[in-house]
């Protein structure tokens, strides 16, 4: 047997092949095909209810794939969870919860620390570095709920960074986020990209998607397109994806008017 460390196999971070995803009998999302490689940022674009969150949950192995395949780092989604980090929307979390910012980031180390054991000095150092990467080192002792929405989102990204994932999944990270926090999030994501982390971001902000992603995946109950961002976020494909919802084109900017 060859030493696997000597010649690391080139494994795609994510390989989705004609996947259909369903909570119950009726599929929520069908016909999804695409690949994400190390160091690539892919934006999941689509209206509310398009199935973006569902696709992310399928990649996490939390929602069944009923047709086709979803392969994460060469494994099944459930078997790859240790190398995958997930950033939920900050506003679903209880702002009254009695926990400090540092404690939240440290949660990213729990899986690595393992059952029955407490996080050690190294774990605290890794968590502190992750918090610095999102520009919130000085807020470590603050209560999580006292931070602004954008800052909370950054703390959750720091928690994911502390997991040291190879694939990072973010669910609408820019929703209701102020410009300072948006810049901090984008900066941290660029850092992760440089380190070779593959990133999947769901968003309905087309301008941000164009800014941040290498590839875009258009979804609305099924896949309408997947490819380089510039070639995929075209008026025709966007109109097909969004259906009746009005699209306005301002020069190179595309605005989706929600109704």
């Amino acid at each position, binding site marked *: 047997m060859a030493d696997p460390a000597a010649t690391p196999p080139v494994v795609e971070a994510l390989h989705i092949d004609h996947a259909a995803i369903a909570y119950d009998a009726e599929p929520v999302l069908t016909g999804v095909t695409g690949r994400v490689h190390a160091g690539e940022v892919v934006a999941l674009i689509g209206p509310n209810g398009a199935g973006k969150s569902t696709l992310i949950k399928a990649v*996490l192995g*939390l929602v069944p794939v009923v047709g086709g395949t979803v392969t994460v780092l060469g494994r099944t989604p*459930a078997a790859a*969870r*240790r190398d*995958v*980090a*997930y950033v*939920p929307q900050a506003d*679903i*979390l*209880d702002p009254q*919860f*009695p*926990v*400090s910012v540092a*404690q*939240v980031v440290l*949660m990213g180390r*729990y*899986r690595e*620390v393992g*059952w*029955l054991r*407490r*996080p050690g000095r190294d774990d605290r150092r890794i968590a502190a570095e992750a918090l610095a990467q999102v520009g919130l080192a000085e807020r470590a002792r603050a*209560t999580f*709920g006292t931070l602004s929405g954008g800052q909370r989102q950054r703390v*959750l990204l720091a*928690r994911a960074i502390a*997991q040291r994932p190879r694939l990072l*999944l973010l669910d609408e990270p820019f929703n209701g986020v102020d410009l300072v926090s948006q810049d901090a999030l984008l900066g941290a994501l660029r850092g992760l990209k440089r380190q070779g982390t593959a990133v999947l971001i769901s968003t309905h902000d087309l301008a941000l998607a164009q800014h941040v992603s290498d590839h875009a995946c258009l979804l609305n109950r099924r896949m309408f397109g997947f490819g380089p961002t510039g070639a995929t976020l075209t008026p025709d494909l966007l109109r097909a994806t969004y259906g009746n919802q009005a699209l306005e084109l301002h020069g190179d900017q595309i605005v989706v008017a929600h109704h």
Partner: protein
Amino acid sequence: MHATLVEPFAVPFMARALTELLLLAGLAGVVSTHVLTRRLGFVADAMTHTVFPGIVLGFLTAGVDGVLPGALAAAAVTAVLLTLLTRSRRVTDDTALAVLLAAMFAVGVVLVSRRASYTADLTSFLFGRLLTVTTGQIAQTAVVAGLVLITLALLHKELLLRAFDPQAAAAMGYRIWLLDLVLNLAVALVVVAAAQSVGTILVIALLVVPAATGRLISDRIAPITLAGVAVAALSGYLGLAISYRASVSHGLRLAGGATVVLTLVAVYLLTLLAGGLARAVQSRRTSDAVA
């Protein structure tokens, strides 16, 4: 002061009652923190209703010795059922649960009502007999408290993550239902441990008020837990002393368990009031400084 706060506990039955309450305070102070962070008030309330028929059945089949096994069996069944029910996203129907709880409770009452000593038995099952606690019961409480506290300490970080962010916990690969089952069992065991001394009804106060009081003075888990244990212990001690003094010196019979619960609630309200006053003073100072 000495006569009220120290002397009563020279009497053996009072010393036993105090020991039992201090054990329960340690147990409930910690478990109530989890009840607070997981918002398990409803689950805790459900336990108090469903453990009751288990106690009655145990007593009817094996006398006093059957109480603990009966309560344990009922608690285990309830913990599993509640974990399953709350796991399924489709059961959002509180009505079904409420009907189940009321039915379980009624089963207990019907079973007791067939006995000649109906009223006395019902009262002791519902409200406990704090002053007749035996050394054997204290030992049982100690074992239960030890088991629960060690388990919760070992699973502390996982339970914290699950309470704070269940989606992320699931994404990391933690089995949410398993963590929920452990915590539901812990809550059930507190109800079981407290059933004979404080009773199945009043134990809900022990499961909710200590950490709620701690939450008023801190926004970190560890201080909330410590404050919860301290508040529960202090209330147990004061409540017992008050009920003893009232009955010995003033001929006023105050039920021990209920007096303890009232003391606990009084401490909570005083803390709430003190916190409000402190904030008022602080904002007054701030506005003075600005002016």
